[in-house]
């Protein structure tokens, strides 16, 4: 099937999104389920149930879809450009840079920066882009990217960012501090995001379309920059476009969901092994697959949190699934990584 039947691959992923969407809508922290959802859709139910499905769950399910889609697509972009199968917005410190940026916006009490633009996604984007620039600066030696340096830079950047965030937030009043911490841990709470969700959704979709236009270049560039230029790729332009787009997507997602790791690693890997590495198929399937994965992960959080007084963050699920997967890949690919 690898790369041979793109339509089938897209149908499979779209079905996964549809099923995940319904499951995620039907199951939640309250007992309201399929029957109630059905009645809500036909309008014959009480106000409270209606509220649960339309005002509480639906925005949250959509939020999960946007976040999962964005993180997966950003993962695909970073993996191709950094020529590193383990690159992922969270692990390489790009999400962390975004969180630091957003924290600064929150700490300064900035809600908008005029013209109705939200400050948080913009600051998050700036932080994400700054991280990418740092990674490239450290890990590029004579035009070649060093795999181990990329990952080590990410580790150190993440440590620096979390220290900086702790330092900055300690100056805040307690209730504000609590709010930032709750968001930063990686939760999907739509009332926090408000009107930034449509903005994030738009940025993720437009960003994916821009990357899709570069799909063939992304294939070629995984064989190295010289090789890609020899085949006609303007690698400098490609790097600029992909880094900005991937940072915009990461910033938009981080601003509404905080730090959620490993999604950008897990989803593209599974899709590559199912449908092959070609970006023309990988990008759209990552968009769909990431959305489906995240909706299911969040459903799990809501259902498992039923007996608890407060929910645990969805980043717990992604890290408990994705972390071991990362280690598995690290072991399988370590020879290639050290020689890259």
């Amino acid at each position, binding site marked *: 099937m690898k790369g041979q039947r793109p339509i089938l691959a897209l149908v499979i992923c779209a079905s996964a999104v549809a099923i995940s969407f319904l499951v995620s809508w039907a199951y939640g922290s309250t007992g309201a389920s399929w029957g109630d959802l059905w009645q809500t859709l036909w309008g014959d139910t009480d106000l409270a149930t209606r509220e649960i499905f339309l005002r509480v769950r639906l925005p949250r399910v959509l939020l999960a879809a946007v976040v999962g889609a964005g993180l997966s697509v950003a993962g695909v972009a970073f993996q191709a450009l950094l020529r590193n199968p383990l690159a992922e917005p969270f692990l390489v410190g790009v999400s962390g840079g975004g969180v630091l940026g957003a924290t600064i916006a929150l700490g300064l009490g900035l809600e908008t920066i005029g013209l109705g633009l939200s400050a948080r996604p913009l600051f998050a984007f700036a932080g994400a882009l700054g991280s990418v620039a740092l990674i490239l600066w450290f890990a590029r030696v004579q035009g070649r990217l060093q795999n181990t340096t990329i990952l080590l830079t990410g580790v150190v950047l993440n440590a620096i960012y979390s220290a900086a965030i702790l330092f900055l937030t300690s100056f805040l009043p307690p209730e504000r501090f609590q709010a930032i911490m709750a968001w930063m841990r990686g939760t999907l709470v739509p009332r926090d995001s408000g009107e930034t969700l449509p903005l994030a959704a738009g940025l993720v979709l437009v960003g994916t379309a821009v990357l899709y236009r570069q799909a063939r270049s992304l294939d070629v560039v995984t064989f190295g920059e010289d090789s890609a230029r020899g085949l006609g790729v303007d690698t400098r332009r490609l790097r600029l476009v992909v880094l900005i787009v991937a940072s915009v997507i990461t910033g938009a997602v981080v601003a509404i969901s905080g730090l959620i790791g490993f999604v950008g690693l897990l989803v593209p890997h599974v899709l590559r092994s199912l449908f*092959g590495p070609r970006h023309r198929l990988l990008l759209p399937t990552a968009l769909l697959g990431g959305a489906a994965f995240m909706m299911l992960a969040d459903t799990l959080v809501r259902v498992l949190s039923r007996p608890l007084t407060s929910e645990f963050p969805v980043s717990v699920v992604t890290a408990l699934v994705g972390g071991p997967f990362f280690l598995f890949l690290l072991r399988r690919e370590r020879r290639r990584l050290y020689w890259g």
Partner: protein
Amino acid sequence: MSVALELTGVGYAFGDRRVLSDVSLSVSAGELVGLLGPNGAGKTTLLKIADGLLSGHAGRVRLGERPIRELKRTEVARRIGWVPQDIEAIFPYSVQEIVMMGRFAHLGPWDRESEDDQAIVDRSLEATDATMFKDRYLGELSGGERQRVFLARALAQEPEILLLDEPTSFLDLKHRLEIYRLLASLAKDHGLAVLAASHDLQLIARFCDRLVLLKEGKVAATGAPKDVLDSKVLSEVFETPVEVEWREGQPLLVWR
């Protein structure tokens, strides 16, 4: 014969280390030129400069009438095929997909690969005897098989000029001969200008029209194989006493 590729007074340094100084050479359409020299003589750097991959070098590179700097990367890629020494794949693309990447410069961002593109890929795989592993992955192939894949990828670019960096270093006797036969035929029958860096003195002498011998970034000797592959010249350039004997148009090397 028209000059396809012309380098004039090319020099290059990595930081303080001078790699090339004042190298001039040209390759005409229909000509197969061999580039020789000890390790570190600057062969790879020279090929990269010839393909416009390194900036900040001294001297000029011209493709036909035009300086390479004036051309876009896609235009260069439609005219020059470059076969690097070895390339590692990070993701599992099939051999066929890799060779199709040679069509990059001929396709717009929204174009689908046409039947013509597929036919060109098939022909390229055929020419390098790589058809039998077209559905396999790079990681499963031997060094020599990989070299044939990347030569096929360069052929799929349909270039006028072919630059090869030790294209036969991992190949067995049979495939070494076949690759040089192919290069000679690309030059003679299809009018390509071919420049190949190699340590394969015997085959290069048999098939090349001209040789360029580099030492420490300078041209130490250039001319017909018989003149360049001379006992005195080789002993000096490779700093090893060797004697060259010619038999049936091929040099035999004897170390002293």
